[in-house]
Each structure stands twice: as structure tokens, then as C-alpha cells.
């Protein structure tokens, strides 16, 4: 049975017909062609599918699409403003935190959720917030550095 849902994705309201069994990950990638969010395991263990739903980091592979009716979703595609990178994206690039790039969108969104609620995390807090984002390439060192760097940058901007 198809259900109609109204979901705001990256600021744009979408109306979609979804099956009960479809996950948010599927409709993002297939119905909306937003393939920046990745499937790494399908079980909520790797975090490659992390998106923000109403500002909260969630595994899109565990969220039924139908649950997202009336909610706001932010994916990696919604983070940059035209050519202007979000400070987190900028920091990930500059710090060399990106190798194969598959875990990157999820890691950036988890980090955004952290910085939105905790603008000056310490290293332990950054590591804890990324505990659900597995990376096999980088050993996490530069990812952590990138988040700390972005948080400093954002605080610098905030202070004006």
C-alpha cells in the first residue's frame, strides 16, 4: 500500500508516494536522486547513511520513510551554499580527512549535529559523537582534527 508523505529535504518540500517498507535512505537515493548519502551496511552500524532529521543525526537506513512525514531532512547535498562549503566540509578537505570519501557525508553530518548542540567540544566529545561513523581508510585522526578545526572556525566567526 502506498502512503503519501510530505517531507522537506534540504529546504525543499517534496511530496512522495512511499511503500511502508521503504527506508528514508532508499527514498533519498532513489526517489530524490540524492546519492550523497551512502549505504554501507543497511543495519545502522556503520553510519555511512547518517542524515539529520529535525536536526538530529539518524541512520537513514533504519528510518522508515513513512516516519518522515512532516519532518525536515538535511543531507550532505544541503550543506554547502552554492560553491561555498560549510566550515565542516572545508575543514575535512583542508585537514586531509578524506581518503575514499565513502564515510565522509555521514561523518560530516554527525559532526554538524554535534557542533549545533555543542559548539566547543573537546577531543573526547568529538570521538564520542563519531563513534557511530566507521571509517576504514583514515584511522579517524584527521577527521577528529577537522571537526575541532571547524568548531574553532565557527566560534571565530560567531565572535565576529
Amino acid at each position: 500500500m502506498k502512503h503519501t508523505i510530505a517531507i522537506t529535504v534540504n529546504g525543499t518540500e517534496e511530496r512522495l508516494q512511499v511503500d511502508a517498507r521503504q527506508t528514508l535512505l532508499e527514498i533519498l537515493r532513489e526517489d530524490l536522486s540524492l546519492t550523497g548519502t551512502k549505504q554501507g551496511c543497511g543495519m545502522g552500524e556503520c553510519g555511512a547513511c547518517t542524515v539529520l532529521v529535525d536536526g538530529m543525526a539518524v541512520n537513514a537506513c533504519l528510518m522508515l520513510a513513512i516516519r518522515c512525514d512532516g519532518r525536515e531532512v538535511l543531507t550532505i547535498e544541503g550543506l554547502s551554499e552554492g560553491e561555498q562549503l560549510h566550515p565542516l566540509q572545508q575543514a575535512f578537505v583542508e585537514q586531509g580527512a578524506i581518503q575514499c570519501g565513502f564515510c565522509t557525508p555521514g561523518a560530516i553530518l554527525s559532526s554538524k549535529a554535534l557542533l549545533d548542540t555543542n559548539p566547543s567540544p573537546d577531543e573526547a566529545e568529538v570521538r564520542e559523537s563519531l563513534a557511530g561513523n566507521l571509517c576504514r581508510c583514515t584511522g579517524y585522526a584527521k577527521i577528529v582534527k577537522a571537526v575541532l578545526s571547524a568548531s574553532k572556525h565557527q566560534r571565530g566567526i560567531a565572535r565576529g
Partner: protein
Amino acid sequence: MADPEITDLISPALDSNHVARIGVVGMPHPGVDARAKAVGRLEYITDMRLPKMLEGKILRSPHPHARILNVDTQRATRLPGVRAVITSKDTPRLLYGPMIADQYPLAVDRVRYVGDAVAAVAAIDTYTATEALSLIDVDYEILPPVFDPMEAILPGAPQLHDVKTRNIALTAGWQRGEVDEAFRASDVILEQRFQTQLVHQCYMEPMAAIAAWDTHGRLTLWLPIQVPGLAQWNYAAALGLAPGRVRVVQTEMGGAFGGKLEHSFHLVCALLSQAAGLPVRIAYTREEEFEAGLPRVPFVIDLRVGAKRDGTLMAKQADLFADNGAYTSYGPAILSAAATRSDCLYRLNNVRTSMTLVYTNKVPTGCFRGFGNLQMHFANESMMDMLAYELGVDPLDFRLKNATHAGDVTVHGFQIGSCGLSECLKQAAELSRWRETRSNPRRLHGIGVAAAIHVSSNRSFVPEFDGSAAIIRIGADGKATVLTGEVDMGQGSKTVFAQIAAEELGLTLNDISVPNADTDLSPFGLGTWGSRATTLGGNAVKAAAEDARRKLLTAATELLDARPGTLVIEGGFVRAPDGARASFADVAKHFAYRNGGAPILGQGHFVPPGVVPSDPRTKFGNVSCAYPFGVHVAEVEVNIDTGQVRVVRIVAAHDVGKVVNPLGAEGQVEGGIAQGMGFALMEEMQVISGKPANPNFRDYKIPSTMDMPEIECSFIESQDPHGPYGAKGLAEPAIIPTPPAIANALFDALKIRFTELPITPQKVLMAIQQTKAHEASSYRGGEASG
């Protein structure tokens, strides 16, 4: 005498190649495609959609060993949405394998592991394809399985392949020097068995393939693959096609670490697409990765080593047993690497080795960063510490004493052109405060060291040749495109190639693009394995850039009507002594207009000098033109209640010849350490009665942010004579020293020697318990005897 006007214009950075070097090589760079990845716009294979593409799924055997009596696909074929169902009957039934042809892409009459491919379905979506699998009826006759390689070689064990006796895929042995004499001359002889386990590469992007046939019967495969050239070569024969009837397009890769070389499911995808008459994609699930990927070859290694009291290594006997799994992937080469390479880390002249590759009814094993050399170094470097302890010498000093040096020809014929091993040992000692830490031991805290030698490519891997070729095209826009058959799987070879091209052409990286390999367009490449991309690929790119530069200067000379040999390249312009200048675009256009539209094409190639495939019998031979070295020092803490091990700090010193991209190099070491830690402490594919018991990330643990230690990285630049700018490989050296460094640190902490990986909290706690019990009973015994 130089014209004074010329000398005024020539900047001090200019070299005799007429290019102003901006020093790109050696500068940190985040990666030429980092931005695209950061905004989620890089398309990986499962992000792609070909018109009319179907989704395919593979039906896999639920039994580890069985005869196939019948396969009935009728119900599946009739399911609405299904476009093709194939079994081996729909294939040419040709045996295939990258090294030994012992596998049918779809099983013909026997299945040999849980996960063996039996049939495949192409349908309009994955739901339908999956449902169709459940409608295929297979009648099996169960056969007795064997899972342990040490049991599989015993008489009476179930035989997997009729042409091989005792389940031995290959076996060999050799001897060098005067082994028995050297043992007799040894003051200390130690023997130990070491075991390493089945682990998965766990790249974040699961494997996938897209196949499509054109109207002329030519196949195109889109693959996230490390070896597009080799696949193109081998898959044509495997499918019964004439050579050249296959095109492989390499897609963007979400990690590989050796797990994405040739795989038989690519052939299944091709056959399925052929049957359906439409493009087909097969995308692995994470569970399928564990069930039917190509995990690391497990080893049983029996080592016997002798040394003199003064610390001189005398002799080594090694017997290696490798678990091939049900079919052969790269096991033979992995076994050979394991059986030889680590011998060359030290000045050891007397070795006797036997190696045996054994079939078992488990998933076929294959290539994973380290390639057998990782497993063997765990054994070897643990044994070095055992010897040092027995002799009462500092393990680091023991290694220094026996270390290989530049100029050595090792016991297997490796010609060591550059060697920073001793420097790495000293650097690691200093940065880790080795001596100070060891002289102030703390309870439940330990420090350990391990060293490693590896190759920059391996002449033995592909019998026909080793080398690399590149083309650089300077387009009418003045920008350069680097065409190479070597592959970037996320490790950053594109960036290294761009840096080298930029260095030689005086361009910035923004002016250089390095597209993925396409066998129709790129020069043939052997691909990325054996830590070869920088050294071999980089040399080829350098040669191609030099050629492009020469051609550019020649065309510019004509354009600017200058005296030959007087032009210089600087910042994307070609300058004449009289001040006239032309942009690369100007020169390229001039060349095109003069030559019927032809682009400026630089071609270059590199054949590693002095390398030979190792002798098939004796395994002797200089297989690589440059040997990298590395040393890790690990500090660990043990939780006495739970056995959990915290790796507190790792100091890594790597001799890479020359660091081309410091940011990338650090990233390789940090990532390698994470994988090494996982291998040492937590990862294991548990197979119970042939079935994968933990085929997911919930139960197969890989290191997370919470597990990682502080890492300090240091690079020694020994300037290899054969590497581009002196550069050697790093990818695999980055992981190899980690597991033995951790094991050695644990010995330091607990005086318990762990010889079986992974060293889980359970193993640690039970060993501590056993030691306590043993000590308690000895004490009681002591009391009793008065």
C-alpha cells in the same frame, strides 16, 4: 657565455629542464577530488544509473560442501518483473581463476563453500530479484566438509578438487645457506607456532558491478576495481570471448585495500546481462561481503630461529600453511610473499622454508593490504622479540644489530637500493622515549617494537611483465590530463600523479586532471597492489610529463620564433628570452592548427630496472626495484578485570624514500595503524560449520574513533635511486609493523606471549588467569617440596 638578458630572466628555481619548479612534490595536498567527496557529488557505482539497467542478485549455496543434483528455475522465471535467470547451463562453463583456474562463475555440479554462487537473477528491482532467489529450487546432496587446513591435508579428508591431491593447491620448499650448520652454531634456538585469522577488508563501499553488452557482442564492465587492465585481459578468456572484446571502466572507489581485484561475480554479472539483453548491476550487501568476498588468507606458521649469544641472527626455518578457502584467488602469490619477504628485513643468510596452500570448504581467500607479508611479520617480529628476551638484549638493539642496510643483497636476492631501517629504528626509539619507558616499567603497561620490509610492486605477480605507462595530453585549454592504468581507490594516487605532472610541467594542481582508468582509453595498467602506484605509476607519469614538456617547448619555440633551448616554462606560460610569452593554451592551439587538430601528447613509461620474477622453484630473485621499510612502537595498557587492551600510543617511522604528499602519507599510516590494530586485537570472521556467524558490523568489530591511540608519524627519506624523486611505496608498510608491535608490547606488560590473532580481551584475561593459576600452583609445589 650566457646572454645577460637571459640570466636576468631565469629565476633561481629554474633547472636544466627549463621548468620553474614550484615544489608541488613534497607539499601537503588534501586530494584532488576531496572537495567533490565533501559535497557528496562523487558518484560511486551504486550511485550510477544506466538506462534500462536491471538489478541482479546471486543465489548462494547454504551448504559448505554438496553435489548439485538439480536446479529448477521455473518459478523464479515466471515471477513478474524478472527478466533473466541463469545457472551454469547458461554459461560457457569455463574454469576461471586469476592464478589457478579452479572455479566456475556459477557452480556446475558441486558447491564448495557456504556462499558459492549457484544461480543469478536479473529483475526490475532488488526486491523482485531477492524474491526470485527464494523461488529457485536446488536439490543438494550433502558432502562431508573440511574447514581446518591442517585437517584438510591429512589422508582421508574430503577432497575439494579432483585434480589436486590432499587439498593442496600448491606446495614448495627451498633452502639457502647452511641452515643446519647455522643452527648448530646457534647459542639459542626457539620454536613457536603462530596463527592468524580470517579477516575482511571492510571497505565502506560494498562491491558491485555493472555489465552491458553492445549490439556487436562486446562487453563493457563498470567496476570499482584495482586491476582494470588485468580484468580486461582475463575476463575475455573466462567468458570465451576473443581478446579485446571486453572493456573495463573503473568507477570511483570507496576503499578496497586489496579486496577489489578480480572476482568471479563480475563474470556472473556479465553473463546475467548477456542473458537479459540489458545492462545489469549486481550490488553486494554487507552480509554478502562476509559470505562471498575475498578475505585475508589465514596462516599457520611454524618458526624455528637460531641466534648467537652476541645477538647475531643465524638461521631460520619456517613452515607455512595457508588457508586458500574453496577456490584460488591470489593465494599463490600471497603465500610466496609471506614465505620470503620478511627474511630480507635482517642480514640472515640461512633459511629453510616450506609453504603449502590448502583448500578448505570456506570462502575463497585473497588479497588484503600486506599480502601475506603482514601475517608473516606478525610471526617473525614476535619471534625476534622472543629471541631478544631469551638473550637478555633490548629488542630494538637486537634489530639494529641485524638490520638490513642499503647496498645489501638479501638472502632471496633483493637488491636493497635504499634502506632507512636503522634510521627508522632510531627515530622510533627517540620519539617513543623507548629506553626511558622501558627502564620505568609500570604495572599492566607495556611498550613494544616491530619492523617491516615490503616492496614497491612485485615482478612475480604478473608473469608477463612489471612496469607502468602514462600519457599526458595538453588540451587546447592549456590544461593537462594524465592518463594512467594505475588506480586510485581512495588512497590518493591521483593526487600524487597530479603533483608529479604539475612539478614537471610547472602547472598548479588545478590545471591537471587524472581521470579514472578506462581500458579503451588509458594505457594498459597492471593496477594498484603491492604498494606500487607511486613508484611505478609515478615514474611513468614523470616520464610522460617530461615528454609532454619537451614537445610543448618544441611547439612553443616555433610559435615564439625563438632560438631552440632558450625557452623556459613558468607558471603555465612559456617565456622567451626577449620577454615574449605564450600560455600553454596558445601553444597547444598552435600545435593543433599545425597538425590537423592533434593534441600535444606526452608518453612515458617505466620498467623497473634489475627486477626478475622469482624463480618458481627456488623463489630467488630481486622482485622489486625499491624496498620500503617501517618501524612501529606501540604502548599498551591492559585492564586486569576484563582483559581489554587499550593501545595508548603508536609511534610510526617509515622509510618511504621521498614523501610526495605529506598529508596523504600521514593518512596512509594512520589508516594502516587502525587496520593493524583491528587485525591484532578484535577482528575475526567466525565461521561455524562453514557458515559465517558474524557477517555484519554488529558482530565483526572494526576499530572506531573510541579505539584509536595517539599516533605520531615520522618519515625517513632515504632517496631511492629508482623511485620518482626517490619515492617508495607506503600503503602496506603502514599496516605491517602494527600487530607485532602490539603483541610485543603486551609481552612487555604481562610477560605473556600471544601467538594467535586476534588477541581479544577474552584471550588476554584467560591467559592472565592461567598464568596466575600456574604461578599459584608452582608456589604451592615449591612449598610442598620444602
